[in-house]
């Protein structure tokens, strides 16, 4: 693993706007050809990180390499390798989809024929051929994002930054975007994405960094992060209080919710475990009304990691709310 070349590295990355510290010693290492998701609530510093890595904003301190170059010292070498799709669709609203792509081809000096060829190919790949001659105002949110991403890909970047690529998209468009990202990675491109959707990180990323207060509070694969927090359990609900009482006595180590007649049994939800649980209820002749399995998801991880450090209950609640959206 340690021999894999890194597409992006950052050590001790710092950035403050006035007194407001946005990044406070961020450490990153993204292996080539992988998807890295930077996960965090609004205001955690995700966009600032992308802006610094993509040469838009200068860092106050720390060392960065993107594609082997320092964005501060050699921005052109970095820009030649990256593609950036920002939070807000960066398309030219006064040009048609096709003209937008040709503009990018011209700025990449692809030449007229190659530019047209790539434009046609990308329109096809992103399902925009029918809308090619239309202005972006006629596009849906998902189409605009696809056009935006297609523009990013005109120059064949090796490293792609996606800043909240699916924020504001409906579920269908979100899944379409995920599929596109998966195809990109299959071609060996490195993707650095930020998201506030835990599911998105879980779906796409090889590694996930949880950003809070300007530094990573946890990092790993989705599975590794989930292992950080307990919380897997089976929940049994009973229709009548008598059955509930008996089950509570028969099953050891349970958490009780008397009001809801619900028992919570820690466990990983495997079939073997469920069978033994049901066998025990059967043996006692107790009938459960319903059974559900809860595995810890990234939400649990996120709350556990980002709330511990918070000292302000109001801010805490805001973080939870953001994360739930």
């Amino acid at each position, binding site marked *: 693993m340690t021999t894999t070349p890194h597409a992006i590295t950052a050590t001790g990355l710092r950035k403050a706007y006035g007194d407001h510290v946005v990044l406070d010693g961020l450490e990153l290492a993204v292996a080539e050809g992988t998807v890295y998701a930077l996960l965090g609530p609004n205001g955690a510093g995700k966009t600032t990180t992308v802006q610094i890595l993509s040469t838009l904003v200068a860092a106050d301190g720390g060392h960065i390499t993107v594609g082997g170059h320092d964005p501060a010292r050699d921005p052109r070498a970095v820009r030649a390798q990256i593609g950036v799709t920002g939070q807000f669709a960066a398309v030219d609203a006064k040009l048609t989809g096709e003209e937008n792509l040709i503009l*990018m081809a011209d700025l990449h000096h692809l030449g007229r024929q190659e530019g047209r060829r790539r434009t046609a190919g990308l329109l096809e790949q992103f399902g925009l051929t029918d809308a090619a001659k239309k202005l972006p105002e006629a596009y849906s949110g998902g189409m605009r994002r696809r056009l935006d991403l297609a523009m990013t890909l005109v120059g064949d970047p090796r490293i792609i930054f996606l800043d909240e690529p699916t924020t504001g998209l409906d579920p269908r468009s979100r899944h379409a975007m995920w599929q596109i990202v998966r195809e990109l990675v299959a071609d060996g491109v490195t993707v650095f994405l930020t998201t506030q959707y835990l599911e998105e990180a879980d779906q796409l990323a090889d590694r996930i960094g949880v950003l809070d207060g300007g530094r990573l509070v946890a990092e790993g694969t989705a599975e590794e992060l989930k292992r950080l927090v307990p919380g897997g359990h089976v929940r049994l609900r009973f229709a009548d209080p008598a059955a509930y009482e008996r089950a509570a006595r028969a099953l050891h180590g349970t958490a009780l919710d008397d009001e809801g007649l619900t028992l919570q049994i820690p466990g990983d939800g495997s079939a073997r475990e469920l069978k033994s649980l049901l066998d025990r209820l059967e043996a006692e002749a107790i009938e459960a009304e319903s059974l559900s399995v809860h595995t810890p998801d990234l939400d649990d991880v996120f709350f556990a990691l980002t709330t511990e450090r918070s000292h302000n209950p109001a801010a805490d609640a805001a973080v939870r709310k953001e994360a739930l959206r």
Partner: protein
Amino acid sequence: MSTLSYAVADSATMLRRNLRHALRYPSMTIPVVAIPVVMLLLFVYVFGNALGSGVGPGAEGHYVDYVAPGIILMATTYGSVSVAVSVCSDMTEGIVNRFRTLSISRAAVLNGHVLGGVVQTLFSVVLVVGAALLTGFRPNATPLEWLATAGLLTLVVLALTWLAADMGLRARTVEAASNAPTPLTFLPFLGSAIVPTDSMPTAVRWFAEYQPFTPVTETLRGLLMGTEIGNSALIAVAWCLGLTVLGYIRARSAYDKG
């Protein structure tokens, strides 16, 4: 390709983009022609008789010959509004961040706006000159003087466009950007565009004689109508070059900071 030829190619790409915008959305360009033409009609047909006798003996009925160079100059100032707006809307719409992360010449985005603005404004100026000719403007300029007129107007437009680009970069909203160049559009009035400066109250006259539009107006009038130019031409060119450099430096620094 060398760095310079990339810069030229990228600026040309951006110029094409801006001209396409202008063709597709002429609503910003139309006022550049329409306002000076309305002014021309007002000053020639409504105020012309009264103003004409004030301009000088023998000018009655030929006020159009006095005012037309001033009106033509006015068209250049309205062009700056559309440039400030188009620059500002680019900066606020996220597309500029895409341009900034591309490996293209840093100057290309602004060059495209400014060159596009110059082309648009000069096109409008030609239409205003045409309108002036239709209302009876009869310049006696030689082809060489026409060429000099075109050259001076190009310098004026270049200076105003870089200043406007800077205003567009520094404005936070498109509305603010469209208001920022308004003082520029009033400057010709406070010069010798409509009436000679010596008819003005002392304080205004002092301002009028030293502001850049007066030597430009006097030079245009001299080139087109054969009036005395004196050292106005030199002062006019110096103003244009100075303001171009000022606007360019300010705009580049605003863009690089942005």
